[in-house]
């Protein structure tokens, strides 16, 4: 069993940077269904790297609360990325499904200030 992912933390950071700098495609987010989006978020495995709440982790950056980019940028990245995150083409994830995922990510409430959490109020 390999542990290649542990060796590529730096590369993932680069990928995260690219994610944040993806080109804007200009269009506003089309209407999406957050409930369907959550189901698709789980079905296509977004949560495996980005966490079930999109909170991010060692293998993938935070993508929710707040969503760090406009829909066009996210869509462009998801379709065309060729780095550590593999691309999702329309063959495996339709435009509507991606729109729904975006709606789901937008629906995740913003986290509280850490100072309001006793365990983190250091």
């Amino acid at each position, binding site marked *: 069993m390999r542990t290649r992912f542990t060796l590529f933390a730096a590369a993932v950071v680069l990928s995260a940077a690219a994610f944040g700098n993806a080109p804007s495609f200009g269009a506003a987010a089309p209407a999406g269904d957050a409930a369907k989006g959550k189901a698709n978020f789980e079905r296509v*495995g977004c949560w495996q*790297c980005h966490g079930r709440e999109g909170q991010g982790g060692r293998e993938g950056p935070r993508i929710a609360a707040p969503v760090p980019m406009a829909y066009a940028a996210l869509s462009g990245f998801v379709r065309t990325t*060729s780095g550590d995150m593999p691309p999702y083409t329309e063959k*495996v994830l339709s435009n509507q499904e991606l729109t729904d995922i975006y709606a789901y990510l937008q629906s995740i409430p913003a986290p509280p200030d850490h100072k309001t959490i006793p365990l983190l109020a250091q």
Partner: protein
Amino acid sequence: MARKAGRSGVDRRKFLTGVAVTGAATAVSATGAVRPASAAAAAPAATRPSTAAAQRELATSSVQVAPGTTPGTPGSDFMVDVLKSLDIDYVFSNPASSARGIHESITTYGGNKKPEFITCMHEESAVAMTHGYFKVAGKPAASLSHGTVGLQHAAMAVYNAWCDRAAAIILVGNRMDAVDRQPGVPTIHAVQDPGLLTRDFTKWDDNPQSLQHFAESMVRAYKISMTPPYEPVLIAVEEKLQEESIEQLQHGKKLVIPKLNRVSAPAGDPNAVREAAKLLAMADNPVIVADRSGRTPAGVKALVELAETLNCPVVDNLGRMNMPNQHPLCRIGGGNLIEQADVILGLELTDLWGSVNSMDDSVEMRQASRLKQGAKLINISMADIYIRANYQDFMRYQPIDIAIGADAEATLPMLTEYVKQAIPADRRAVIAARGDAAKKAHAQARERTLQAAASSAWNAIPISSARLSAEIWQHIKNENWALVSRDSSLSNWPHRLWDFREHHQFIGGPGGAGIGYGLPAAVGAAMAHRDNGRRLAINIQNDGDSMYAPGALWTAVHHNVPLLTIMWNNRAYHQEIMHLQRMANWRQRGVENAHIGTTIWSPFVDFAKLAQSMGMTGYGPITDPKDLSAAIKRGVDAVKAGEPVLIDVVTQPR
């Protein structure tokens, strides 16, 4: 089950002196001074269930003995004397008939004390426990198994120890003489060259053919294993030498246990170190990258002093406890420090190339240098001195400007002194300003870390890695605690939230990334913590890893090892899911099958019941974060009272 009897309390300085004295004092036969009085009265019990053997013994021995009994003193009693002379506290073992002689001598002649026989459920676990024990105790223990099937089981754990620069003495039983070997299983379990199987990833091995040879090879093996780079060594324990008597084997010749000489760790060539110091002193953006530079507590202090002298960041790759993680100059992960650096100093890096280059896991496998134009690279490591072929743990070749073939910890004091000498007066203000900037950046990073912990997943079910880490921390931060597991599966949240200060508080990972290390290594490490004043040992345990070696839980209970195991239960070999997703996406045919062969569903493993089945207190599964605190408190209280405890926590993937 002799936890109390197994305590040593041996001071290391006194130990070295003691070995020298013991070496001189045991220039007599094995039945001399080192034999405990309580054991001396016990009659030898080892017998070989063979009429031929009894007839042979009677025919060759001048000692009058009853048929079917061993005349005189078993050779394996002398072997135990040798182990005692080396201050070996534990022999981790799954019992093996080819080692039955020394097994009986450890438990009876040796009084099962220093060394104590630790019952393991698998040879791989036995070596992993030896591995974990070494990293806390700072001295090797031994494992004992068959030289064939046992060593085959153990091989992956030996490779982990090799990659992780961990000392271990691997003892394997074997009988060479075909004429004197029973047919069937004993012959299937015999081998011509016991060390061959693991020779690519042990530092030295030998197959002694006399008791004197055994004594000399054991002392040599210890010395080699404990000379940096620390590595495992293997000694075959010939059955004939174990089971026949000293009188039969020696024919009146005296046995001597040689004095152990320790080899000092090699420091760098002063001229090369001085050149490195000049580069660092004049650098605008120097960066240190450390992996296993903290061999001992002195290594941590030495690295802090160098970093503070230069006010430069230290990227900690977490192979060991190298640098206090909340120190303003410590950087876990490192961000883009490498790209900005004009001088980079590597210290005992597993992968120098990988530290200064990037390579993604895409179809194209794109790779690029992370070094900026003109950046200088200095490396202090034993990796260029001690290298083997075949297994690729030496990594890719990286050109270096100043390569210092030496032990980093031994070299750091000299380097720091030379850096102090090399800093011109007009640069002191610049370097001081770097320190102020580093403190400011560290405070800002700390703020971002805390806010990242308070993410959308803070109250999520399953439980987030940040939440679990914070909940554990509140219950251990005022204790004498130590983490005996790595934390990469938790996105390093313990290292992002906790305050690691002491060398013993973190021991790195498996080294070879071989799964099945975690649980047994934690048990071995916890034994050493128990022996060092009962530190509170915390093991955040990957669920899939634990299923390789669940029998280690039994060993912890049987030998009264206080250890809090918190199961990081993401119900998968999660990394493999991500690999499968990657393959599926490269091929654009959907990830819906990525769970096949990678997940631990249908059924879920009930780890609390698994622990309970072996007599261990087990809580869980805990799925709601609001239930965590009470469970962790109960667990900590029980471990402080001397119990091993397991808490099963169902978690987010990372």
